[in-house]
């Protein structure tokens, strides 16, 4: 057997030891599993998480009203109206992003269970969050990054995140592109016996519930009501899932929650050639769509992040719109922040124009910025990789070929993805993986997991 297959064959046993969760307990033997029971029994209550996060200096971040961007939206809106836009300044967390909410709970758990260190496989802000929390808790930390193409050239944004992890004393493993990152992760877990600080455990997702909870409370305190819409940048699904659960726990049950990704259609995420032809390393369709339609593709047997369960809408924005919005946030609001939150901010700017002046739309995160993570760094890198930077209509942008900065703010658009199609493909993927539903439990589960009805699920299945 090849060394690759050899390690992959031990996947389940390595996972079990490195997580300490027996996922079998929640399985039904079919499509269904007990999601809420998993979240409850393996995780922590919201009150416990608030306490864990306070002790780790995480959360309780400011909510900022973007008055100038709201005013600009009203100036360019076809109706002259736009909702008030707020942003949750998650860059104020110790490592500069909301990801620390996830990391703080995972690492608290790892420390409680006596693990000596943690491993996270991520090229994103989560690595820095895990490294920062590990430093705070005296745990060792390895971050595994997909960082380079076969020429050894890496995106400045990823290199910056690697630097930050190293600053916090973490060991950074940098790899060339490819799905075998998971294999390296498993080998390291086996070698070190460290905790698998996966993004997709119940701890990681429950850690974000405080974000939704804080948003509901802060908006209510400031305006006397809950927000009408919360927009979340969507990649692996944890951000949206955790935020939605937190909003609901705060009583904001009528708040709509929308996911937003950067449109990178046509670029293959594991392709050596495409790797450096994209200017976004997360929050894009390369993660957003596969993780919505098949969440259990994650590095844990059952993903705690289940976006279709909570999503009321899903929108795409273009790369050029996000860079443009990052510039506007700096120039009009005096806030220099990274691309992740600005993905949903670009969509919010457009969606606000379809709402009334007294309504409220909240962008639920910002992230830190700096060398490598700045639009100037990313656009310079794009040009070096043969991407044309143009000014015009972002509708004409072709991922991997050009980046089109809008000629006018009225051109920023949130392009709707039909949730119905995503729900259908999720159901199809479940059936492909587990076979047809065995009983009503499976139908009920699919209805819950797609925020639809049992009739809808039955109808989809009969069409297959």
């Amino acid at each position, binding site marked *: 057997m*090849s*060394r*690759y297959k050899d390690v992959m064959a031990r996947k389940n046993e390595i996972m079990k030891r490195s997580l300490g969760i027996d996922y079998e307990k929640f399985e039904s033997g079919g499509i269904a599993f007990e999601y809420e029971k998993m979240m409850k029994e393996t995780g922590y209550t919201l009150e416990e998480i608030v306490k864990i996060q306070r002790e780790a200096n995480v959360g309780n971040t400011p909510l900022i009203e973007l008055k*100038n961007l709201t*005013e*600009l939206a009203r*100036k*360019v809106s076809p109706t002259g109206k736009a909702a008030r836009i707020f942003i949750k300044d998650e860059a104020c967390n110790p490592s500069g992003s909301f990801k620390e909410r996830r990391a703080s709970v995972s690492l608290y758990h790892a420390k409680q269970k006596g693990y000596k260190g943690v491993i996270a496989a991520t090229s994103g802000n989560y690595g820095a969050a895990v490294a920062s929390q590990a430093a705070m808790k005296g745990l*060792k*930390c*390895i971050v595994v990054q997909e*960082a*380079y193409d*076969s020429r050894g050239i890496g995106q*400045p944004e990823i*290199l*910056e995140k690697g*630097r930050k992890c*190293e600053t916090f*004393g*973490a*060991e950074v*493993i*940098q*790899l*060339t592109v*490819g*799905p*075998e990152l998971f*294999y*390296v992760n498993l080998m390291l877990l086996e*070698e*070190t016996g460290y905790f698998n600080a996966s993004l997709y455990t119940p701890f990681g997702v429950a850690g974000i519930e405080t974000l939704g909870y804080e948003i509901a409370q802060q908006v209510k305190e400031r305006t006397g009501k809950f927000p009408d819409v919360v927009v979340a940048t969507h990649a692996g699904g944890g951000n949206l899932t955790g935020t939605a659960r937190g909003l609901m726990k705060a009583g904001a049950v009528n708040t709509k929650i929308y996911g937003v990704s950067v449109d990178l259609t046509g670029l*293959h995420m*594991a*392709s*050596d*050639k495409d790797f450096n032809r994209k200017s976004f390393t997360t929050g894009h369709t390369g993660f957003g769509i596969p993780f919505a339609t098949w969440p259990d593709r994650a590095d844990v047997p059952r993903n705690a992040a289940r976006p279709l369960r909570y999503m009321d809408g899903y929108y795409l924005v273009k790369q050029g719109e996000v*860079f*443009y919005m990052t*510039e*506007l946030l700096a*120039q*009009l609001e005096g806030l220099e922040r990274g691309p992740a939150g600005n993905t949903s901010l670009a969509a919010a700017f457009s969606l606000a124009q379809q709402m009334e002046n007294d309504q409220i739309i909240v962008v639920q995160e910002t992230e830190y910025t700096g*060398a*490598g993570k*700045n*639009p*100037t*760094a*990313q*656009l*310079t*890198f794009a040009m070096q990789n043969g991407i044309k*930077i143009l*000014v015009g209509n972002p509708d004409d942008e072709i991922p991997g070929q050009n980046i089109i*900065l*809008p000629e*006018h*703010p009225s051109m920023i658009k949130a392009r709707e993805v039909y949730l119905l199609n995503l729900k259908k493909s999720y159901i199809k993927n479940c059936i492909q993986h587990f076979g047809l539903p065995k009983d009503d439990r499976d139908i009920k589960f699919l209805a819950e997991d797609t925020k639809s009805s049992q009739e809808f699920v039955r109808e989809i299945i009969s069409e297959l």
Partner: protein
Amino acid sequence: MAQKGDWVKIKQVILEPSERSENTPQDTKGTPLTMWVKGLLLQDGEIGDTVKIKTLTGRVVEGILVEINPRHIHDFGNPIPELIKAGIKAREILYGGEEE
């Protein structure tokens, strides 16, 4: 020449092209899965030598020495005039243009 105790970067091929996963796209499959990691050098060595390092978690890893005291080279890039102009235009829309 790097000396024992220097902060260095090494490289190691994890999987040769023939060993790569079946679900890897064709262009990626033609290349080896390569890893870079940094640590303190456990012996003297030249660039290109196979050496051992101790990483920040205390692991001992072997690989080819590629860089001594590796520098973070990412930066802020070049100014992007299109973005600067976008800011000017947005301010004009919001606050009105300057009077001539």
